[in-house]
């Protein structure tokens, strides 16, 4: 008979804290919300305590991209899909240089990783990056609670503190509203994205020549080893643009390059005059974390650019454009975070299944008359995109760069190129 083995921590009923032989085997962890709701689970990743807004993401794949998305700064992210960590962590699927979530909440961490691309486990990755996680809690109950009460302040801790103290500490946190998180994730100084064209090529699954007797079907690439074969080639550079980094995801930069843009990335606080001096062909406004209304400086810069250069904005960039044009933003109850949000293009009727991650939205009614709403979310009819009727300005609330999520809206980058070409 095999020797008795350690039982996986998630088998244990952590909801109650009664003394059980199982409970001492894993690190216990607490997730406490500002309204007094407390969950007990097993800790994984780093040990310690973090404060943040507790929100949920409904994507079934893509936890690595979510962890490294700077837009999650200040948030404790719950995955609604229960089984996480199945395919580990690899070097390619990152959206920035490090993970940004404050804490990570899941139902069950996989004991093994199964992927030909995996380099380490999720547990190890979070430990290395000093991010605590909690597993073994009823994430469905948590999600339902957040859906009815809205996203909440919370604490995730592996310290042995009382429930009461945890709730108190969650309540003392300042929260997200009115706080500028962009300054924590934006670049310190301007830089050229991927000058060597080494990180922008689109990843592909290695193919093979199919018909042995005939011509190979794919672009002549065999299934040889090495990262080179896993990338598509890039088109020549056609446009030089400046991208405001409010917490930009790398896949936006990759997609821009894949569509012929050479991108100079500038810090969020860069004044419009500085950007105009660079004389770019267009300006991109990135995604980013937190409350757009806390970013007066960004709205001011953008105001100084509207009408002078073609502008394309995504997510927070869309919200900042809304503010710069005189509109208002508001906090959504529990936000849109996931990979299955249906968006309808109001002019073509075409539906895209989109990747989204935002807790705030632009109030379409607050937009001036010369701005036209172009896209809506079919779930709650909120504004998903608008454009200026006369000036070369358009933006979307969702993430056409996907990563994680569907590629349905990929052509928006080409649309930006067309906008620039139309203005040349």
């Amino acid at each position, binding site marked *: 008979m095999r020797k008795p083995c350690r039982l996986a921590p998630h088998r244990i009923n952590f909801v109650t804290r009664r003394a059980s032989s199982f409970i001492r085997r894993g690190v216990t962890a607490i997730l406490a919300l500002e309204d007094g709701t407390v969950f007990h689970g097993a800790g994984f990743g780093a040990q310690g305590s973090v404060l943040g807004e507790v929100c949920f993401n409904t994507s079934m794949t893509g936890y690595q991209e979510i962890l490294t998305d700077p837009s999650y700064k200040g948030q404790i992210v719950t995955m609604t899909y229960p*089984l996480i960590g199945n395919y580990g962590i690899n070097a390619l699927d990152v959206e920035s240089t490090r993970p940004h979530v404050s804490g990570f909440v899941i139902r069950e961490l996989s004991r093994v990783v199964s992927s030909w691309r995996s380099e380490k486990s999720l547990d190890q990755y979070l430990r290395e990056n000093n991010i605590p996680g909690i597993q073994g809690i009823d994430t469905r109950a948590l999600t339902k609670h957040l859906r009815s009460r809205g996203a909440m302040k919370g604490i995730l801790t592996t310290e042995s503190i009382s429930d009461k103290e945890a709730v108190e500490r969650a309540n003392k946190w300042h929260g997200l509203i009115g706080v500028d998180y962009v300054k924590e994730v934006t670049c310190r100084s301007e830089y050229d994205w991927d000058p060597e064209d080494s990180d922008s090529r689109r990843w592909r699954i290695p193919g093979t020549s*199919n018909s042995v007797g005939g011509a190979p079907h794919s672009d002549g690439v065999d299934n040889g080893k090495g990262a080179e074969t896993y990338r598509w080639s890039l088109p020549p550079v056609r446009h030089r643009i400046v991208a405001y980094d409010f917490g930009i995801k790398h896949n936006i930069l990759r997609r821009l390059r894949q569509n012929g843009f050479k991108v100079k990335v500038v810090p969020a606080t860069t004044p419009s005059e500085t950007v105009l001096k660079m004389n770019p062909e267009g300006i991109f406004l990135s995604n980013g974390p937190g409350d757009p209304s806390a970013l007066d400086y960004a709205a001011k810069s953008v105001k100084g650019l509207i009408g002078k250069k073609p502008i394309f904005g995504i997510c927070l960039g869309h919200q900042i454009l809304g503010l710069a044009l005189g509109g208002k933003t508001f906090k959504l109850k529990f936000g849109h975070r996931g990979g299955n949000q249906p968006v309808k293009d109001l002019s073509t009727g075409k539906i895209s299944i989109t990747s989204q991650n935002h807790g705030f939205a632009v109030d379409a009614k607050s937009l001036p008359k010369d701005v036209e709403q172009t896209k809506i979310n079919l779930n709650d009819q909120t504004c998903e995109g608008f454009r200026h009727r006369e000036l070369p300005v358009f933006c979307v609330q969702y993430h056409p760069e996907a990563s994680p999520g569907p590629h349905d809206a990929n052509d928006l980058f080409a649309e930006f190129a067309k906008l620039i070409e139309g203005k040349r």
Partner: protein
Amino acid sequence: MPKRTDLKSILLVGSGPIIIGQACEFDYSGTQACKALREEGYKVILVNSNPATIMTDPEFADRTYIEPITPDVVARIIERERPDALLPTLGGQTALNTAMALHRKGVLKKFNVEMIGAKAEAIEKGEDRQLFKDAMLKIGLDCPMSGTAHTLDEARVVAQKIGRYPLIIRPAYTLGGTGGGIAYNREEFEQIAQGGIDFSPVHEILVEESLLGWKEYEMEVMRDCKDNCVIICSIENFDPMGVHTGDSITVAPAQTLTDKEYQIMRDASFACIREIGVETGGSNIQFSVEPDTGRMIIIEMNPRVSRSSALASKATGFPIAKIAAKLAVGYTLDEIPNDITRETPASFEPTIDYVVTKIPRFAFEKFPGVDSTLTTSMKSVGEAMAIGRTFKESLQKALRSLEVGRSGLGGDGKPWRVGAEVYGDRDVLPRDVITQKLTTPNAERIFFIRHAFRAGFSVEDIFQLTKIDRWFLSNVEEIVLCEEELAALRL
């Protein structure tokens, strides 16, 4: 786009009696279609010879023909009823084949009956191996490497180019593939290849790379007449390639794909349904992934509602057959309300916070003498599905639902019968018996994975014997570890 008003009556072809490989899933899909079409005010004419399906209840169609589903009989029904359209995609392979026969005979053209859902050309392209492969290569999807040969020398050249065994040899134009086979080494290859060349009336064989042991995935896709496409459900097979999907334990959603890989598979699914030309409705598309390199191959597509559609519908709450019927008469996905939320439209992709496991039910005990090895032709007679918050929970529930007398993987105090031998529930079985039961896919293999862990096999050992993904095996191991822990407590 509102529903079509140029159509008044629609002929729906059912799937006939329940047989292995075509069971009550088409009762479900056909009934859903009847209801959906009548709800829209169309006159529904139904042909189905099965008295046991609820579809043939008088209130489900305006005209019900309990007649043989053969082209001749259906042609006479068409002549008499003069329907405006024929919906062939909701009655399984029987309906699809019958509709294609009517198309080829010119019956549809003669009586001006429009095929809705999928056109004949699309069905042809999706069903014909070579047409399908050509279409997939055209849009840049990967297919198994292959080449044709007329002599042993030519065959050797193809084999060398593919570069590894096993190899599949298919002689051209022989009935049921006579003279073909799988070669695991050079010796076998030369023998089978020569035999195949001799057997084939045109002395031609196809040498194809084998995908045995690769991971298998399915995607359930829906498309509307405005070319909106959504994935309803992804499915990962517990059993690797080599076992018919109907005989495989399958799990939704896919468990071991990164988002990058999943999205590439999603894009490929849309490219496939567009290239094949299924205009509206659902399709099931199957992929194979080489575990060590990630190479992704498209295997086949069913240009119709399938067994997996029923599973995907129940797994996600998205009624594929009902929506497919509505799409066929011109609605778009955003015009149809989502059955679950009732407030949001059907143009979304279900995301779930649970795991669904389907386990096939076999009845080999009723067919003595039948080879119980699982292969590429389906042998199961039914299936059970279960939902759980973890794969372990759903697997255990599905095993319990099979009604084979087990409460799950084991540990229920009941004996195990292996051939003539009877073992106690907690007995450790002999390693050679376990090895043999793991190596060849069979109905009890899942239980022998438990026996293997209890006999000291590691995840790696079992993977080498079965090629079942280590993620699945590790989960089964956890169930066994829990059993051990509980057993120890009882002492």
